[in-house]
């Protein structure tokens, strides 16, 4: 720690930080643009000027950019010396000479860092009287809107997009006061993380196109903390609603999970909630004509009377929903809604994490690892934000080089210069090329069986006591040997695998590699990806697989938030469903399963319900209802409780909190999740936390066409938040942060004020609770020793290919995401394509486990012989895709 003086007051600060970070952490408002806690400093905007003094006797001092000065022992600065104050206001004035000042029509208005900094710096009247430069804007795809005239040239966008996220199709062009940030030509921004530009850009150059079409201001949104539902990473979000539709998803800072960022699926996938495929009415026997809630329930009561019920929950539904359903139908009759295979895979992964002796990391811990070995996953497409973290992790080992040269890491450009392109080891074994390959030191492409074997070879070279699979080529062993030595050469290796190549041996091999490293004394981490936002929660809750539960004889089937046709082949599901008298489906969007329902009950999405998801790390995280929908939509768990009441078996639990509590009482493994958020009666200064800002507008007018009398605000019985602007607006407990705001800070950058130290943990701790910790003692090596993959004569073995846009169920229904989804496809290498006599881009018929699908042919030569990559999760694609035959 270093002692420094800011404005005459002494502070103890981390000397590895710069003076801007130190000043902000100390609570001083120093304006800035180009600096960003995750991107470091470059000193270009000159906005963060302060006066630095040589010593106590120096009364004049000199102007320095606080972001470019280390917070070294004895530093004395003033943030409010007139010289600094005046200069900062002049910098804004200069920036404004070319800014169009179009705040009234700019989507950033009201949460614009430039607006904030302008006010903060005190600049008011502009002396510039000449013309402004103008630029042409570009089409950047369905997610991001481009308005270059608003640019203040802070270089954050390119630094984030290129240096941080590894994208290469955004850059800065030209020079002097004509510098231009964009693509070489109009076109879709290719990075899976492009949406963060919206938050990284301090003004309105890059804005959320999906928000733009609604014209909504930040202060007019009703917002609540949420958890992304589009993969197993569980990024924290803030979701905003107005006029009954979701308007945007913003990142919610959680140091342990997603930090400042989100992936594009998480940010733009929300539009499925506004889709015309939403179920908002009760449907009985295929019709909603004349069906009311009462008539639907009458029907259900009759249908259920004296009948045996099976309940199928879902890995995309909350813990509470699954639990409530389980309570309704009884443990014996409950399924978590996964196919046997998927259930086994997920269970194996979870058990390994629980019984092994290797800790599974949070994303923050991932970012601290030094070498990475990925087995069987295209993480960018299956757990996108994990991939972004891995990109950061492999920079760690090289940082020592900068350290040695005395270059602090926040000093971004010089640190980069001395590190050059070097990065720590990243090795990937996968069925085919993946999006992280650009920074991989080695890749090994083969069938899942061989990836598992490859993993065991690596494990053997780490710990020679482990067996070495036989029949290996020299090339494979030398590759594996290199990986083993790379992993052993770092203190913190990370092994990543997951369920997505649908092979248990891959998971086992990954575990053996990790355990071997642990035995070798390494501070190793093991990370498994899962398919859905609550796969881990559902499996922890325990229940049967689909195949198992369908063995039970019953007349009525209740399916909650699950499209069974995504789990098993059409043929199987058709035959299962045909055995029931009644199929009651609770869901929020039309699916193949709702088509088969005799009754459909509308329920809320994750923004219309409170709930808990457990992410891949085993971290239970709470999400909250954002708004109360006008239609008949209510939470799934509440709907299930209604059914219970209707059939005269009412539950004791009334509100969300009650369900969570009894979930914990009945399932010890969830102990603690009841404390994820304060109880509903929690109050600060006698008030609930407000979901709306004090500036929320139009409240009395927005429903005046229906009734001029303002309705009484709806009470939230489930959480400690109010649905309106009534309530507490200061800093809420971290699990209840509805939006980031601090006096003078209206943009996302207000986050600074919520952190103990800039870029660090939130005051009050980061929300979430880890449910899975390794047992230190009774771990074992799997050593499952699978046979090598053999190309079978004419047939092809299917391997699922995941796409960030297209493979996940809900986001694929979102309007903007849909624009990025390709047709269903089959991936073949040229040799196999020639053998099957098909050409690139041709649309062909294939049979997947006997079911016909029409797909487009894509040629990719890194795919191993005898494999067919199939677009996983795409509409019309059979989820069981082991046997593939090309029909033409």
């Amino acid at each position, binding site marked *: 720690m270093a002692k420094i003086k800011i404005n005459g007051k002494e502070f103890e600060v981390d000397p590895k930080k710069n003076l801007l970070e130190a000043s902000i952490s100390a609570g001083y408002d120093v304006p800035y643009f180009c600096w960003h806690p995750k991107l470091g400093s470059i000193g270009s905007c*000159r*906005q963060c000027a302060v006066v630095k003094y040589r010593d106590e006797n120096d009364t004049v001092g000199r102007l320095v950019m606080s972001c470019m000065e280390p917070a070294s022992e004895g530093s004395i600065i003033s943030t409010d010396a007139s010289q600094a104050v005046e200069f900062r206001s002049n910098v804004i004035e200069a920036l404004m000479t070319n800014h169009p000042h179009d705040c009234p029509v700019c989507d950033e208005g009201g949460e614009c860092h430039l607006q904030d900094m302008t006010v903060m710096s005190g600049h008011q009247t502009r002396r510039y009287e000449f013309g402004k430069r103008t630029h042409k804007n570009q089409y950047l795809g369905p997610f991001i809107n481009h308005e270059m005239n608003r640019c203040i040239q802070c270089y954050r966008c390119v630094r984030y997009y290129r240096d941080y996220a590894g994208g290469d199709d955004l850059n800065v062009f030209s020079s002097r*006061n*004509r510098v231009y940030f964009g693509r070489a030509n109009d076109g879709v921004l290719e990075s899976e993380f492009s949406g963060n530009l919206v938050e990284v850009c301090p003004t309105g150059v890059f804005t959320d196109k999906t928000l733009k079409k609604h014209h909504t201001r930040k202060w007019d949104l009703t917002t609540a903390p949420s958890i992304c539902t589009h993969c197993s990473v569980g990024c924290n979000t803030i979701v905003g609603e107005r006029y009954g539709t979701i308007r945007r998803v913003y990142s919610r800072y959680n140091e342990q999970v997603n930090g400042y960022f989100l992936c594009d699926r998480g940010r733009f996938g929300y539009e499925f909630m506004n889709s015309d495929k939403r179920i908002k009415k009760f449907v009985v026997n295929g019709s909603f004509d004349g069906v009311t809630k009462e008539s639907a329930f009458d029907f259900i009561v009759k249908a259920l009377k004296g009948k045996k019920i099976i309940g199928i929950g879902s890995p995309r539904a909350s813990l509470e929903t699954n639990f409530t359903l389980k309570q309704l139908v009884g443990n014996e009759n409950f399924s978590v809604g996964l196919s046997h295979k998927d259930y086994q895979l997920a269970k194996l992964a979870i058990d390994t994490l629980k019984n092994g002796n290797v800790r599974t990391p949070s994303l923050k811990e991932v970012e601290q690892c030094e070498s990475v070995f990925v087995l069987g996953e295209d993480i960018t497409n299956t757990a996108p934000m994990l991939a972004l973290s891995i990109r950061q992790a492999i920079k760690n080992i090289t940082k020592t080089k900068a350290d040695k040269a005395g270059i602090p890491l926040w000093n971004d450009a010089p640190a980069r210069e*001395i590190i050059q392109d070097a990065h720590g080891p990243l090795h990937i074994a996968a069925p085919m090329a993946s999006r992280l390959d650009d920074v991989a030191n080695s890749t090994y492409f083969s069938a899942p069986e061989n990836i598992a074997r490859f993993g065991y070879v690596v494990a053997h070279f780490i710990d020679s006591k482990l067996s070495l699979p036989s029949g290996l080529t020299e090339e494979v062993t030398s590759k594996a040997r290199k990986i083993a030595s790379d992993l052993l050469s770092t203190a913190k290796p990370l092994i990543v695998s997951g369920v997505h190549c649908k092979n248990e041996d891959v998971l086992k091999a990954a575990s053996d590699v990790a355990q071997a490293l642990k035995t070798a004394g390494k501070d190793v981490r093991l990370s498994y990806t899962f398919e859905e936002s609550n796969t881990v929660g559902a499996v922890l809750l325990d229940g049967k697989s689909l195949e198992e539960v369908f063995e039970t004889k019953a007349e009525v089937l209740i399916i909650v938030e699950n499209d069974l046709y995504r789990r098993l082949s059409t043929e199987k599901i058709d035959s299962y469903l045909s055995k029931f008298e009644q199929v009651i489906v609770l869901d929020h969007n039309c699916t193949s399963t709702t088509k088969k329902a005799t009754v459909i009950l509308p329920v809320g999405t994750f923004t219309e319900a409170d709930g808990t998801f457990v992410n891949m790390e085993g971290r239970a995280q709470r999400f909250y209802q954002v708004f109360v929908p006008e239609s008949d939509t209510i939470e799934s768990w509440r709907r299930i409780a209604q059914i219970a009441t209707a059939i005269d078996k009412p539950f004791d639990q009334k509100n969300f909190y009650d369900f969570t509590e009894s979930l914990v009482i009945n399932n010890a493994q969830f102990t603690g999740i009841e404390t994820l958020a304060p109880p509903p009666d929690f109050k600060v200064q006698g008030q609930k936390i407000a979901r709306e800002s004090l500036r929320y507008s139009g409240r009395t007018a927005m429903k005046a066409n229906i009734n001029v009398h303002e309705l009484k605000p709806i009470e939230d019985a489930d959480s400690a938040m109010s649905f309106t602007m009534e309530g507490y607006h200061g800093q809420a407990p971290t699990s209840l942060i509805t939006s980031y705001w601090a006096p003078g800070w209206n943009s996302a950058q207000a986050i600074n004020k919520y952190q103990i130290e800039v870029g660090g943990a939130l005051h009050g701790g980061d929300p979430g609770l880890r449910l899975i910790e390794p047992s230190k003692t009774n771990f074992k090596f799997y050593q499952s020793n699978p046979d090598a993959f053999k190309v079978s004569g004419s047939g092809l073995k299917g391997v699922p290919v995941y796409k960030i846009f297209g493979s996940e169920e809900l986001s694929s229904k979102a309007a903007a995401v849909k624009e990025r989804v390709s047709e269903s496809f089959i991936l073949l290498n040229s040799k196999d394509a020639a053998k099957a006599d098909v050409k690139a881009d041709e649309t062909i018929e294939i049979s997947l486990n006997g079911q016909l699908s029409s797909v487009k042919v894509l040629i990719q030569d890194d795919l191993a012989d005898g494999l067919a990559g199939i677009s996983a999760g795409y509409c019309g694609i059979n989820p069981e895709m082991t046997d593939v035959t090309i029909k033409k």
Partner: protein
Amino acid sequence: MERPLTKNIRPDGKPLFIKEYESLGGYQSVKKALKMQPKEITELVKKSNLKGRGGAGFNTGLKWSFVPMEGQFEHKYLVANGDEMEPGTFKDRLLIEGDPHQLIEGMIVTACAIQADEGYIFIRGEYTEAAEIVKKALAEAYEAGYLGKNILKSGFNFNLHLHTSVGRYICGEETALLNSLEGKRANPRAKPPFPQVSGLFGQPTIVNNIETLCNIPHIINNGAEWFNGLSLTPGDGGTKIFGASGKVKRPGLWELPFGVTLRELLEEHAGGMRDGLKFKGCLPGGASTDFLVEQHLDIRMDYASVAAAGSRLGTGTMIVLDDKTCPVGMVLNLEHFFAQESCGFCTPCREGLPWTEKILQKIENGKGEMKDLDLLQFHTKFMGPGNTFCALAPGAMAPLQSALKYFREDFELHIKEHKCSWK
């Protein structure tokens, strides 16, 4: 009087190639340096009081001494800065075109001193002839064994390449130059770290001006004392190539000792003003130095004296303003240049220079108001030293702030008469 730098340069400017160069004693210093300890060379150069001729005037030996001499590096680099885009500066061209081997010799010795194994001669793209000459000279030097592996069987290796630039004044700024050499946009880099520690490709690097490097062989051959003795000013070793452009009788370049007076330069060497014209002022060392006027004619041309007079020696090539040329127009021309050449990285320069240019244009067009002068004054402070990322913008403000001081009436005249009376 000795003129080590230009003694070989022919009156017609035709280049001197290796045979002749060697016959005139060329490459002797390399032989000597190869036998010296690197530290010895650096120490000698430090003592010689050779100061960087690129404009900043930093002690060259001292700069070299910051290069780490212990530890393993992939490479160490030496770069000759021949960007020479500072308006009014044309001295390095003379040296490369007239005596290319002098530069190469100086670079080999410098490489010995810092133990560099790779070098680049960075020349602006418009110097097409210079590039041809250097290319030929480099080939000759390789051929003769002065460059490449195991130079003169000493075991020392040094490869030297030519890089011709593709334009932009900012490439002359040493860190921007390094970015440009790396094939990147020529934005300057943050200092610290200084290039001596982390320069080209993150390796220790020395960037020196062409003229600076051309002095090295002579210091090695003749010693520090001799070098100090060349100058009339204690503390500034050696000679300097001075020059003059503008409406003087004999514009040109002259190698003279430090400490000659401005008057001598103007009246004796440049032949005084053209007939019918009066001296109004001059920028003593290129476009980014402050105006000196009549009252300064007797100051000595050395770093300290010119600084004491409120300007900078800069590159030592002066631009003379006569009484028939509009000073506002001249400053406008300068600021136009700087605004065009801003790299666009930092705010004050990127936005402030075009703004400044527009105000000056307004005044020159007869539309100016008195408050515009305050605004110009403001800009000179706003873009002052320390406020911008690199020295381009502060340099740009030098002629403006001094013009506002010395030629204020001329600005006011434009405003009062609503026109430029020089047109």
